[in-house]
């Protein structure tokens, strides 16, 4: 009884110290292999998410430092508090919501079906009796696993470490199609890779920034407020036009569509 009480006190003190704490510099984790959202060029972190995060930090008066982590470790690293924020084109899902906390969404994407430039396949035939690829641990991969695998006859799914590798295999003819986020897919097409988009799967996914579960530093309200200020100041539209020419600008933060219990 006495011991339980002591443990309780220690836990409470620990939680309080976490809640009250503010950090000098917050570590923002990203997977720098996801242009146009995140990449590294000549040693500098670049990309839409990098600039938005820097702007929010400036507006809300905190400091950030970026750290590159591969996709395979990034979510667990945030869940364990090795980093404080993820800003890396991360889709909000209920599964991820169990281990990390999300800000309000700022971006909407669907899944695009990429095939080779000279391919006759369409968005339907690409998934019958073929092998297709996606980056492991992404929502695109998950979508195929949940909706097609075992249902579409003869379909096999190959995981890749990055989307670039998947597209390389697609170009080489080793797989028939790649499913990836619409903006990423457009990026490959614009860069002159020998692929084309033949269809869009309307998944209506939303990107959001994420913090360690329980938001120990109280960052979520500041990020949400920062997004609002960024939109109102007009800088949001400026950034969207620069990184995604021709894409319509919608007011952020967006309304969250994915509701989890």
């Amino acid at each position, binding site marked *: 009884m006495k011991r339980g009480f002591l443990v309780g006190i220690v836990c409470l003190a620990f939680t309080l110290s976490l809640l009250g704490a503010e950090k000098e510099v917050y570590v923002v984790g990203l997977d*720098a*292999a*996801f*242009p146009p959202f995140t*990449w*590294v*060029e*000549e*040693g500098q972190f*670049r990309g839409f998410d990098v600039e938005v995060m820097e702007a929010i930090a400036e507006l809300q008066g905190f400091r950030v430092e970026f*750290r*590159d*982590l*591969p996709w*395979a*470790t990034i979510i*667990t*690293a945030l869940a*364990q508090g*090795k980093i404080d924020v993820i800003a890396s084109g991360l889709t909000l899902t209920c599964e991820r919501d169990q281990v990390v906390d999300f800000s309000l969404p700022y971006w909407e994407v669907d899944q695009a079906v990429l095939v080779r430039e000279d391919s006759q396949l369409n968005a339907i035939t690409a998934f019958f009796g073929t092998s297709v690829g996606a980056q492991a641990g992404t929502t695109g991969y998950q979508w195929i696993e949940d909706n097609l695998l075992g249902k579409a006859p003869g379909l096999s799914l190959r995981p890749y470490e*990055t989307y*670039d*590798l998947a*597209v*390389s295999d697609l170009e080489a003819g080793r797989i028939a199609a790649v499913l990836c986020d619409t903006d990423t897919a457009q*990026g*490959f097409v614009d*860069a*002159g*890779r020998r692929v084309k988009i033949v269809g869009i799967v309307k998944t209506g996914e939303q990107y959001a920034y994420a913090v360690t579960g329980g938001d120990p530093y109280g960052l979520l309200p500041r990020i949400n407020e920062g997004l609002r200020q960024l939109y109102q100041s007009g800088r949001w539209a400026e950034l969207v036009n620069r990184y995604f020419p021709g894409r319509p600008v919608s007011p952020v933060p967006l309304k969250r569509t994915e509701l989890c219990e």
Partner: protein
Amino acid sequence: MEALLRELPWLLRGVGVAVEVLAGVMGFGLLGGLGAAVLQAYGPRPLGLLVTAGERLLRGIPPIVLLLLVFYLPWDLPPLLVAILGLGLCSAAYQSQIFRTAFRSVSMGELQAARALGLSKTQAIIHVVLPQAVRRALGPWSNELSSQIKDTSLAYIVGVVEILRQARYIISYTYGNSLLVFCFCALLYFLLTRLGNSLLFRLEARLWVPGFVDRRGHFPTRR
């Protein structure tokens, strides 16, 4: 190609980081491995068995798993340190085997002779066995160095920006060039390995104690 040239300084920076990781890993492995080997060969039996158990365990775990284990420890360590610890533990286990066999190759009689001359066991190990054992260990040790150079490429998984991660950066923002960039990486690793081995080869030659036969096992020719 232009991207590769423009990013060359950063790739070389990646080489620098890889060398830092390597130096840490080999240093950690050297100390750990030597200590473990001494305990295995000359230490009290229970301690020796414990060390052997640890060495068997570490040699049976893939380096990438060790890296992730160290990464997910509850302490906040900088990525470089995580890489050095993770890969270093693995290397220490392998190096202990290199040194253990080197110790064993020095005959027990020498140790007994040193003891008979009045040296303590520790003195005998340090002054008689170690100098011979280290010379004999250099060959296999250079082998371990070669394999560790290439294992530094695993450090990206814990967020160390070494050669391969820099390469990934180029590939992802130029949306391609995989073959060219990876070929260049292969060249970098090859050069690094050659350089490391030739330095060790020179060291081996310098430390060689001339006897009846030279390093190739031939009798020296009379001048």
